[in-house]
C-alpha cells in the first residue's frame, strides 16, 4: 500500500480515496460528485502542465483542478 496525491497517480492507475485535505466547501463539492474517502478512483489523464486532472469516479468522469488534485490523498495497492 502506497499513499500519494491524486495528481501523482499515473494515467489509468486506480486508487482508493483516503482523505481530502481541503476546506469544508471543497470537501463538500467533491463529496457531491462522489469523491470521498473509501471510494475507488481512476485517473484518466491530465491536461497541460498544471491543468486539471480527469478522473473516473462512480460512473462518471470528473475534471478536478490541479490544486485540488494535490489535496486528495489516495492509496494504491
Amino acid at each position, binding site marked *: 500500500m502506497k499513499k500519494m496525491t491524486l495528481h501523482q497517480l499515473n*494515467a489509468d492507475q486506480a486508487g482508493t480515496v483516503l482523505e481530502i485535505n481541503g476546506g*469544508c466547501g471543497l470537501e463538500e463539492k467533491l463529496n*457531491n460528485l462522489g469523491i470521498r474517502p473509501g471510494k475507488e478512483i481512476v485517473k484518466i*489523464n491530465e*491536461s497541460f502542465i498544471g491543468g486539471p486532472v480527469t478522473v473516473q469516479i462512480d460512473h462518471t468522469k470528473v475534471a*478536478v483542478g490541479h490544486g485540488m488534485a494535490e489535496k486528495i490523498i489516495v492509496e494504491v495497492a
Partner: protein
Amino acid sequence: MNNQETIRVALTGNPNSGKTTLFNAITGEIAHVGNWSGVTMDKKAGEIKENLNQGQAEVTAVDLPGAYSMSPFTSEENITKEFVKNEDPDVIINIVDATNLSRSLFFTTQLLELGIPVVVALNKSDLIAKKNIDLDREELSELLGCPVVNTVATKNQGLEDLVSAVHEVKAEEQAAPFEAGDVDLTDRSAVEAADKRRFEFVKSIIDKVETREVESNQQTIQDTVDRVVAHKWLGIPIFAVIMWAVFSLSQTHVGPLFADIFVGWIDQLNAGVASMLGDSVSPVLRAILLDGIIGGVGAVVGFLPLIMVLFFLLALLEDCGYMARVTVVMDRFFKKVGLSGRSIIPMIIGTGCAIPGVMATRTIKDKRQRRTTAMLTPFMPCGAKLPVIALFAGAFFNDAGWVGTTMYFLGIGIIIIGALIVRKITGDKSTRSPFIMELPEYRFPSIKRATKSMASRGKAFVIKAGTIILICNAAVQIMQTFNWQFEVVAEGAQSTSILASIASPFSILLIPLGFGAWQLAAAAITGFIAKENVVGTLAVVYSITNFINPEEFALVGDGTNVASVMGLTSVAALAYLVFNLFTPPCFAAIGAMNAELESKKWLWGAIGFQFSVGYIASFLTYQVGTLITTGSLGTGFLPGLIAVGAMMSVIVYFMTDEEEVQSEATVNA
C-alpha cells in the same frame, strides 16, 4: 386540493441529468439545453402540454438549475434550494440520471425530507440496457417511498406516466426514508457525520436495486477520445482546428449556398415593392422603404443562413460533449491570468449571444473572477457580430476562413490580456476558486436537437431584425435623407444630412484608426444598439442594396465593388472590423453586465475598458498593418497614440475599487 386548481411542479436534479430537455418535452418550450453541467442559470416556468395532462388540473412546470445537494456550493444551486424550500411547490419531480444512480440519490433523499410529494424520473433509461445495467425500479420506488418512472426525455418517452404520477401524489404527504435529524450546519464534523450516514443509506439502496456488468474502471472508447481531445499538448491545436473548420463550413461552404436563395427572395421583394410603388410616389418614401427598410434589413437577413449554419455546428459540438472538454483544456490558461476554467463557459455561450453568456458568470463563486469574466465575455464575437465579420471577410479578404477564426482567437487573446490587466489593477488577493466539473459522456450529436437549438437562436435573430434593426435602418435612412431644416439633401451634398453632422465629430476620433469617414462612424454608433445594425447601416449609407451576389455562389461576389465604395484599404477594413467587435457590446449586453457586475464603478470601468481596448486594438491593427504593407505609419499616428495613452490612464482610474485601493498600493510598491 381542488382538482381544478393549477398545481406547480419543480424540476430538480443533478446537473446534466436532462432537466431542461424534460422541461422542453413536457411543455413544448424551447429553452436552451447543452450536454454539460450548468446550462440553466435561472428558473423558467411553462405550462404542461394538454395531451399529457389527460384533462386533469393544469400543471405549471418550473425548470431549475442543476444541484448536487441542498447545501449548495455555487449560487445557481441556491436558486434551486430557495425555490423548493420557500416557494412551496405542490410536487417535486426529481430527475435522476439512471446510469448514475449512486451519485444522484444523495440529493433525492434530501428532497424526500422536505415533506413535499416527490416523483423520481429515471431519465436516460434507454441507456441502462446499453450499458448492461440492471435496475429494479419497483424495489427502488418502495425503498424511497415515492413513485419512480422511466423516462427518455430526448425521445419523449414516459412523459404520460410521469405526469399521471404527479397527479396521483399531488395531495399526499411525503414520508422520508432517511432522516438526517437536526444537524447544526455550522458544526463541520456534525455535517460531515450526517452526510456520511446519508451516503451509507444511498449505498445500501444501490446495493439492493442495481447490478452492473461493466466495471467502472474498464477502459472504453470514451476514455480514448478523451485522451486525444483533452491531450496535454494536442488539446489546444485540436480546438483551433475545430473552430477553423466550423468557420470555413459556415462561411465559405455551406452558408453561402443558402444565402443565395435568401438574397434572391429579398431582391424579388425589392423589385416587387418597387413596381408596386410606381414612379408617382415621392422619392423620399421610395428611399426609406426600398433602401432603408428592405435594403437594410435585407442586408442583415441575408447573413441569416451563415449564422444558422454556425449555430448548428456549435450546437453539434455542444451536444456531443466536446465543449465541456474545452473548459478542461483551457483551464490552465485561465488560471494563469487569475480566472478559472469555469470562465470559458460564459465565453462559449457568449459566442451565441453575450447576454446569456454574461448571465452564466453567476456560476463563478469568486466575486473578482465573476466580475472579470462578466466584463470580458463580450469580447467573444457573438452571433450578431458575425454578419459584420462575414461582410468584411467577403468584401476585403475574398471570403477567407482565417478572418473569422482570427477574430475568435483575437477575442480570446484580448480576454487573457484583459484578465491580466484587471488582476494587476485589483491585486490578486482572492482565494482561487477550485475548478471541478463533471464531464458528460460523449454521445452522437443529434441533428434534431441541433436543429432546434439553431431554430431558437435564429428566431431571436429574425425578431431582432424585424423590430429594432428595422426601426434603426428607417431612422438612419431618414436622418440621411434630410438635413436639419428637414429639406431633402441635394445629390452630392450628403455631408449636410443630419446623420452626417451627428457622425462627423465622432469620425475625427477614428482617423488614427484608418476609417475617419462619417458613414463608418454612423454604422459603428448604430452598432451599439445592436451589432447587426453595422451591416444594415452600411448598406443604407452607401446604398448598396445587397452584399451577396446570387450568380456567383459567393458572399459579396462583387467584393471589390463594395470595397471600392467604402474606399478603405484592407488594413483599414480589418481595423474597422476589430473596432466593431471589441468596443462595448450592444446596450442589451451592457444591461446584463450591469446586473452581474453589481457595481456602478465596475460597470463604467468595464465600458471604458472595452472602449479603450477596442480603440487600442484597432489603432494597432491599422498603424502596424499600414507600416508593414506600405512601409510608413498611417495617418494620425501621433494624436492616436496620445488618445491611447489617455485611455490607459482612464482604465487604471476606473478599475480601482474603493476596497481595493490598498492592494493596488501594495502591488505598485
